[in-house]
C-alpha cells in the first residue's frame, strides 16, 4: 500500500559546501569555481575534480573500524539531519528508524593505500578494516552514528545508487518495516575510479560541457546527501519513482535512450501526473557524447515541450553513486526556497554552443526563474553503468 513519503530533512556535503544554505547560494554564483586540478589521481595526467574542501568531522571514538574519507563525508552530511533523526527516534523508537545508504566507492581510497602497503611490506596497515571497503560498512556506520536499530543496508548500482536508495526507503515505509529511514548516498574520490574512467576515455581535460557541441567528457566529483524519509503527509515529498534497465551494454547507455525514456515515464505514471506538470528537470547530464545524445532523445520523447532543465555536474562534478541523492537534494532546495510563486532553478553552465545534432532542450540560463502555483513537481534523472536507470519526482504542496 502506497502512503505519503515525506523528505522531511536533508543534509549534504559536496564541492559547493556542506551546509544546505551555502550550497543553495553557490549554485547561482557565477564566480564560484568548484573544480580543482589534481595530478595525483590519474596516472601521468592532470584532471579536474570537484572535491569536498570543507573540514570533515573525525570518526567518533569506538567506530574507528569504519574510518575512511567516505564515511567522514557521510558524517558531515548527517550533521544537518541529526536533529530530525533524533526527533524521529524519540517519536517512533530507534528500532523503527532504518538506513538505506548507498555508495559506488565506499572506502576504495583506503583500500588502495592498504594494498600498496601490502605490496611493500607483506602486511596490511594497522587500522585498515574490511568495513571501510564494504558497501555495507557505509550503512552500518550511519546506524551506529545515529543509534538506529531499524533495518540497515547499502545499495550500490553505480550512478543510479543515490536515487534508488530513496526508492528503497519508500518501500521500507510502505511495508511498515520502518516509520522513518535515513536514505541517501556518498562517494569519495579515489585513484581506482579516476583511472578507470580515464581508461574509458570518459574524463574531460576541461570543465565538463554537457549538451555542448564541444563536449569532451565528464569531471569526477565527491560528496554525499542524506534525507530523513518519513510517512508523514505534506511538505516536500517523493511523489514518483521510475526504475528500468537498458539491457544494452555494461558501460555504455543505449544510444536510443529506451531505458531512460522508460525510467522517466514510469516516474510520471507513479506520481500520476503528466509530463507538462514537471516544472524543472535535473539532467543526468554527464557531458559524455553517449549520455547527452541518449538523454536528450529520451527527454524529447517523454516531453511534448522540453521543461526547463540543467545539469548541475559542471558544479558538483559527477559524484557517481552519490549523484542521484545529491541532485535530489538540490531539487529539494529548489522547492524549499520557492518564494511568491517563483522557483529559482540552477543554470546550465556550459560554453553556450549547442550541439545542433541533438533535440533542443530548454537549458536554464543565468537568472532564469520558473513560475509555480500550487503543487509543484521537479524531476531528477540518474543513469548508471550496467544500464541501471532511476528517475525521481519530488513534489511540494506549495
Amino acid at each position: 500500500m502506497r502512503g505519503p513519503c515525506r523528505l522531511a530533512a536533508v543534509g549534504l556535503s559536496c564541492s559547493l559546501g556542506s551546509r544546505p544554505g551555502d550550497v543553495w547560494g553557490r549554485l547561482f554564483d557565477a564566480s564560484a569555481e568548484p573544480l580543482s586540478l589534481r595530478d595525483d589521481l590519474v596516472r601521468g595526467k592532470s584532471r579536474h575534480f570537484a572535491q569536498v574542501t570543507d573540514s570533515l568531522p573525525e570518526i567518533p571514538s569506538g567506530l574507528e573500524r569504519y574510518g575512511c574519507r567516505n564515511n567522514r563525508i557521510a558524517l558531515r552530511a548527517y550533521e544537518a539531519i541529526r536533529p530530525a533523526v533524533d526527533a524521529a527516534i524519540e517519536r517512533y523508537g530507534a528500532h523503527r528508524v532504518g538506513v538505506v545508504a548507498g555508495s559506488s566507492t565506499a572506502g576504495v581510497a583506503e583500500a588502495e593505500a592498504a594494498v600498496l602497503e601490502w605490496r611493500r611490506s607483506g602486511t596490511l596497515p594497522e587500522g585498515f578494516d574490511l568495513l571501510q571497503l564494504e558497501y555495507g560498512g557505509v550503512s552500518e556506520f550511519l546506524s551506529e552514528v545515529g543509534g538506529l536499530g531499524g533495518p540497515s543496508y547499502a545499495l550500490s548500482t553505480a550512478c543510479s545508487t543515490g536515487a534508488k536508495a530513496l526508492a528503497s526507503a519508500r518501500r521500507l515505509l510502505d511495508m511498515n518495516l520502518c516509520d522513518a529511514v535515513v536514505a541517501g548516498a556518498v562517494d569519495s574520490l579515489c585513484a581506482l575510479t579516476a583511472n578507470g574512467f580515464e581508461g574509458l576515455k570518459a574524463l574531460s581535460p576541461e570543465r565538463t560541457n554537457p549538451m555542448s557541441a564541444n563536449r569532451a567528457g565528464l569531471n569526477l566529483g565527491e560528496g554525499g546527501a542524506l534525507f530523513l524519509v518519513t510517512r508523514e503527509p505534506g511538505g516536500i515529498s517523493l511523489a514518483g519513482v521510475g526504475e528500468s534497465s537498458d539491457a544494452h551494454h555494461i558501460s555504455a547507455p543505449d544510444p536510443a535512450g529506451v531505458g531512460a525514456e522508460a525510467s522517466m515515464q514510469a516516474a510520471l505514471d507513479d506520481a500520476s501526473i503528466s509530463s507538462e506538470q514537471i516544472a524543472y528537470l535535473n539532467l543526468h547530464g554527464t557531458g559524455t557524447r553517449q549520455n547527452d545524445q541518449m538523454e536528450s532523445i529520451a527527454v524529447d520523447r517523454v516531453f511534448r515541450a522540453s521543461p526547463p532543465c540543467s545539469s548541475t555536474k559542471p558544479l558538483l562534478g559527477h559524484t557517481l553513486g552519490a549523484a542521484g541523492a545529491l541532485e535530489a537534494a538540490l531539487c529539494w532546495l529548489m522547492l524549499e526556497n520557492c518564494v511568491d510563486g517563483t522557483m529559482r532553478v540552477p543554470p546550465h553552465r556550459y560554453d553556450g554552443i549547442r550541439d545542433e545534432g541533438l533535440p533542443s532542450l530548454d537549458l536554464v540560463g543565468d537568472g532564469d526563474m520558473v513560475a509555480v502555483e500550487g503543487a509543484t513537481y521537479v524531476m531528477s534523472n540518474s543513469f548508471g553503468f550496467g544500464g541501471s536507470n532511476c528517475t525521481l519526482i519530488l513534489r511540494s504542496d506549495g
Partner: protein
Amino acid sequence: MNEAIITSWAAWSPGLTNRDDWARWALNPTALERSGAPEVEFLPAMQRRRCDALSRMCFQVIHEVCPPEDLGDLTSVFASRHGSFGNMTGLLFALADSRALSPNSFSHSVHNTQAGLFSIWAQNRVASTCVAGGAETFGAGLLEAFGALATQPERAVLLVVADEAVPEPFDSLCDDKGAYALALLLRSRESASGGTPLSVQLERGVVETSMFPDAVAFIRWLMGPERLLRLPHPRRTWVLERS
C-alpha cells in the same frame, strides 16, 4: 507485506552443484570450498568470456531457477556482501604496481555488474537493485525482494544472493571464506500457485557466531523439516518462518 512464496530455488558452490549434493551436505555440513566456478555453457561465448567467478555462479543458479522465456519479465534483486571482489582486488594491485587499469575489468567491477550482465543476457528491461549488508546481506536482499513484490504483486521477483571467496590480502579480515550462489524465485500469495510461503520477522540482536553466511544456513534450513530459522546478529535477529 513481509511474506512471499518461494516457487523455485537453486544453489551452487564448488563441489555442491545439484540438489543431491546439497542434500548430502545438509546432513553433515562442512565449510564451503573457495575456488571453482560453473562452466555456464548455456551463455553465448561472448558473454561467457566477460563473466568472473561471481557472475558465473549467479548465472548458473538463475539458469536453474527460471525457464529462459520468463527471465525477461522478472524484477531482479542481487545481494552480495563483496561483489566482484577478485576483479576489484586485481584493479587495486594494478594501481599498486602502476599498471594501467583494463577498461573491461573496471567496467565489470561495479556492484551491479551481475545485474547489468543479467539484463543484457535476458533482455530484461525491468527494475533491478543491488544491495549489500555485511553479514546481514541475505536479509537485505529479502527485504528488497519483498518490497518489490509489495509494489508490484503481479510480477515475480528473482533474488540472487552470492559471494566469491574473499581474495588475498583481505581474506585474513573476513570470516566468510567460501564461494556460493543462491537464487530464489519469489511470488506474492495472490499470484503463486503452490510453493513454500516464507515470512520474515526482525527481533532483538544477539552475539552468536555462525558457521555459514546466512544464505547458506538458509539453504540447509530449506532442505530440512524445521519451521523456524533464526539468523542471529549483534544488531538484530532475522526470524524466517515457513507457514
